[in-house]
């Protein structure tokens, strides 16, 4: 993958501190700029205020879960690619979230490498559509 001149800005939304820090480190090491949101409310604010290229959204969060957060984001931003994160492949929440224009799903047990391939594919496709 050729490195983009302007860094893509990625928002990671996850209440699990360890996972989001590890993913952040990995994406940064691959040349992305990473912003963190620790809950749904935080994610909505940052999506409004920051110029983002993609969102990684954990579906299992207290108070406002990923699906609800995506629903609210879609009310003001129909366009931004969202990749959902879940701990399990068999997670029913992934299917539920599909109705809000989801670009893909990444499972926490999978290699980060796979997540990176997915991220690049989604970004390329999104640029193609634009």
């Amino acid at each position, binding site marked *: 993958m050729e490195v983009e001149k302007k860094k893509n800005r990625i928002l990671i939304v996850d209440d699990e501190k*360890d996972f989001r820090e590890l993913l952040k480190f*990995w994406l940064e090491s691959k040349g992305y700029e990473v912003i963190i949101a620790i809950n749904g409310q935080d994610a909505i604010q940052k999506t409004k205020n920051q110029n983002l290229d993609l969102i990684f959204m954990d579906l299992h969060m207290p108070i406002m879960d990923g699906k609800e957060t995506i629903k609210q984001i879609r009310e003001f931003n129909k366009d931004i690619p969202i990749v959902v994160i879940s701990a399990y492949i068999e997670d029913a929440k992934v299917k539920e979230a599909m109705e809000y224009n989801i670009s893909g799903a990444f499972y926490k*047990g999978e290699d980060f490498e796979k997540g990176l391939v997915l991220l690049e594919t989604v970004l390329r496709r999104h640029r193609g559509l634009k």
Partner: protein
Amino acid sequence: MTEAGIYIITILISVVLGIILAYISSLRISSAKEKKNIKDDALTDLETPELESKDSFHSLLFKEINNVVGSSKKSKLITYKVGEIFEQTLKNKVDAVSSEISHKYENIIAEKTKNEEIAWGKYKEILNDKKETEAVIRSIAEGLVVVDAKGNVIMMNPAAEKLLGVPSKEKTGKSILEGLKEEQIVSLVKSNEREKNKEIELVSPNEETKKILRASSAVIEDEDGKPVGMVSVLSDITKQKELDRLKSNFVSSVTHELRTPLVAIEKSISLLLTESIPESQQREFLSIAQRNIKRLTNLINDLLDMSKLEAGKMSISCQLCSIVDVINEAVSGLKSWADTKSIEIKKIIEDNLPQINIDPNRIIQVLINLIGNAIKFTPNSGTITIEAKFISADNEIEVAVQDTGIGIPKEDLVHIFDKFFQIEGERIPTDISGSGIGLSVAKEIIKLHKGRIWAESEKGKGARFIFRLPLS
């Protein structure tokens, strides 16, 4: 004819009549001897009995005999004797017939009475059987409802009345679901006509209680195999369902609890292995792995403790120790976690607390659980206060853990120590969910120490968990 001829004929007739009468007399005597044992000398004794003109039969007989015999005295005697024989024979005949009839009649009556008695006996037997069956039906804990082919209730037992919340009188002759308030029936799902088991979900009008009934039904058929109705056994499976639900929640949350640290461990190690990472970052990743291994260990220990408690195999080894040391040790293990959320842990401990005979490791486990929960449910920059004091009236030491979280809803306070129980849905306030067994393990440990544990909470004022341990 000449006069002589007529005379001869007359004499002949007289002779023949005489012979006949003589024969009748001899017959009468022999039959009297045989039958009624009438005295042989009756003829001589009763030479001239007064023939009372009893009836027309006697006077007719006398007239006829007198015509033949010509002697009134003899005729009277003969008439009497003949009459007596006749009467006796008739009487005997009548007696015989009436005795036969009465015998037959008696037999019929006897037989009838016997049959009636048998019938009565059988009726009583059946009545008793019926009463017995009814008593059995009345006393079984399962609800029993019988409906006819149209689906109208024929009978139901008290358990069914209770389960459906409708008295039998109101239901008899009506459809099984009629009379139940619309809002009471949430679902009659998971069933179709052919299926024998249905689940019926009922909710009381005020929605305070929910009941799930299982109805197992069987079709009642007549001799020709035509369906004439249906018998249904209703059992309350609300508790069973609730337990199923809690267990499946437990399994999914344990799975989640196992996966999350495993992912963190795996990811941090693979980053360490594959990337060139600055040294400061390396330390961070290693501590992520270490922290999550600890989290896994705690979870596994909790699970093991729970299975030990369930099997009644958990034992405690008590020793005299200071509750202050125990509290300090529990807090020191959690301080770094509290620091990540800028939570302050305050201690208010009475001076000169007496030593207490406890298993320090188990009490530390309880405190770690309570303080850990407090950290989970307290927002950043909150405060957790640990208090310890001596209650002289009860000779007990009381320890309380108070947080500044959102508190526990009142309806959940009673369940908080139940196995697998978790405060549901949006009420889970912060970042970590649990396995739902920590508090039930804590409760069991306190019980093993003959102490007690409870929770108090007011909405918005945080939660307070208190336990007391007896000194002796």
